[in-house]
């Protein structure tokens, strides 16, 4: 008996005709355009600032991708950033060694994630409602703990590290842990049995359950990871600005979600890959940076992010509609037309 070919399409098609490559392509185009046309974009500081700016979004986008691939959502991430930042501040202020405080902040992030995860995975509550609640709850705890003040005393070794660059490359040091995490998450999501389960859950959680995937535990794990990484982002955020405040990173959740969706992850779950997400985050970062350099303010950047988001989700359904129309007209053209006779066919509407 002959064996099956492994792939239906040639390699170049599988690599190039994908949602991810579309985003990457767009990113390259925008970068090239900016280098050629935006003054100072090719300057030495651009890369440093760009990477530092997008770092928290990039970090949180990694686990958020997993959450969205399972078909859930986590709106509380920015509040976890705020809470871990405040905890770090309060504890260092109280005299705890920095590393100890950071570990507590990370643990708190994991606990926040576990709280979301428990309610979503085990109690079965809708993640949208749960995380709208914890968005307020965690932020409220953060603001409540630190009250009116900001903690600004952090060991300089650490604050410097958050902004240091590798040699003279202009690439920030934080890129290293980020790369490690990114590779880790990519392997976990795309090259592990756990990751396959995550996709299965997003595509069809019932079938996943029938196949022996532990749906509840997987979802729980993913939420815990999100909390943990958000706390890590919170520590970075605090160090970069040398300031722990209750309102740190307010509104970041929407940017993260926008970037993830832009990167080709389907809000319905089950679809999307990390390279696309990274490109999506960078795309938003580059556009913002280039526009700021041209003196365009935040408002236009908002409009562009919004339009990209709507366009990116609409593109899928528009493409589907087009191919549906095309296949229908092909069928009409091919066979003898048995479409209802026009004269009598006044019934019904020709929509679909």
């Amino acid at each position, binding site marked *: 008996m002959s064996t099956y070919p492994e792939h239906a399409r040639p390699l170049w098609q599988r690599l190039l005709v994908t949602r991810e490559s579309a985003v990457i392509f767009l990113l390259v185009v925008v970068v090239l355009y900016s280098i050629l046309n935006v003054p100072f974009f090719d300057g030495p*500081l651009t890369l440093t600032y760009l990477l530092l700016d997008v770092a928290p979004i990039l970090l949180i986008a990694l686990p958020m991708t997993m959450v969205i691939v399972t078909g859930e959502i986590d709106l509380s991430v920015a509040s976890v950033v705020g809470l871990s930042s405040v905890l770090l501040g309060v504890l260092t202020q109280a005299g705890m060694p920095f590393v100890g405080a950071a570990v507590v902040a990370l643990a708190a992030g994991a606990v926040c994630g576990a709280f979301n995860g428990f309610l979503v995975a085990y109690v079965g509550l809708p993640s949208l409602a749960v995380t709208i609640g914890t968005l307020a709850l965690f932020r409220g705890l953060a603001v409540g703990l630190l009250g009116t003040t*900001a903690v600004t005393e952090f060991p300089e070794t650490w604050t410097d590290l958050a*902004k240091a660059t590798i040699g003279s490359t202009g690439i920030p040091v934080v890129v290293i842990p980020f790369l490690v995490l990114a590779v880790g998450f990519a392997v976990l999501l795309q090259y592990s049995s756990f990751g396959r389960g995550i996709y299965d859950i997003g595509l069809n959680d019932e079938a996943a359950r029938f196949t022996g995937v532990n749906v509840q535990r997987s979802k729980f794990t993913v939420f815990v990871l999100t909390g943990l990484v958000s706390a890590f982002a919170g520590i970075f955020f605090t160090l970069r*600005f*040398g300031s722990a*405040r209750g309102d740190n*990173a307010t509104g970041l959740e929407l940017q993260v979600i926008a970037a993830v969706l832009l990167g080709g992850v389907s809000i319905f779950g089950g679809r999307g890959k990390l390279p696309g997400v990274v490109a999506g985050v960078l795309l938003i970062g580059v556009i913002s940076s280039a526009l700021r*350099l041209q003196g365009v303010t935040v408002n236009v950047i908002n409009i562009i992010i919004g339009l990209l988001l709507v366009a990116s989700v609409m593109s899928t359904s528009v493409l589907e509609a087009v191919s549906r129309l095309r296949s229908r007209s092909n069928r009409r053209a091919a066979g003898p037309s048995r479409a209802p006779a026009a004269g009598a066919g006044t019934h019904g509407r020709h929509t679909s």
Partner: protein
Amino acid sequence: GGGSDSGSGSGGEGGGGATTVTFLPKNLGNPYFEASDAGGKKAVEEFGGTFDEVGPQEATPDAQVQYINTVAQQGINALVLSANDPTAIGDALEEARSAGTKVVTFDSDTEPQFRDVFVNQASAEGIAKSQVDLIAEQIGDEGKVAILSAAANATNQNTWIELMKKDLAANHPNIELVDTVYGNDDDQESFDKTAALLQSNPDLKGIISPTTVGIAAAARYLSDSDFKGKVQLTGLGTPNQMREYVKDGTVKGFALWNPEELGYLAAFTAQALVDGTITGKEGDKFTAGDLGDYTVEADGVVVLGEPTVFNADNIDDFDF
């Protein structure tokens, strides 16, 4: 930080020696900064530089840092800003300065090491005293008062509040400061906070709101409530915002320096720094266009002057 020497060499967009100045307010959509930036623009045009105004939507330090970074990338000659946090933006400012940008703070300062000069609207003591005096006069130097501030972390606000407390304790023993609430320079929040304040302190005699958004929101609340005329309101506000409430009797008097002049002075200070007239040392002297001569005081501070008190008699003389 990286790329320090190439930055200064790249010069400004204007080229040909014209000074490039970027104004960075706490946030956009704030009439106070609109006025100050207008003053800055006027000054920059007078000395033939290039003016730019950028800013975040929300008054947070992280949003401001991105704009400071952009300025560093562009190699702008001078950055004139009102700080959202005294330390959080410090490193970004240092990077901008190492790229050759002169940094002037106005309205709200950072810690002194992060900037070249701070252009102070008035001495903090003067501001605090004028407000305390106003409220004391309005309520007959007796009773409970409260403060409606902006953000809990705002440097200038907190400095004034501390000084007001001291002044009250020392010179007005019969006035009791019962509460300080924060409206975050948001109309709705300031408005609702005023309502809550009056609710929880029914026998309140007066409110001090040392922020332009706060005083306008509080005035609007009072003007339509039973408290109108019973609870006195003063603070720092712009005449255009407050005109209606001064005329209808809600507010007897409030104070402010002229923000346009503040921006004007800050821009000339920046120019003086760029062309080397001053370095930020105590005793440096320079001329600020129509405003005349100024001297840098201790800690690199330039003071605009004493605040003006606005009341029904003079408010129509001002338009900002």
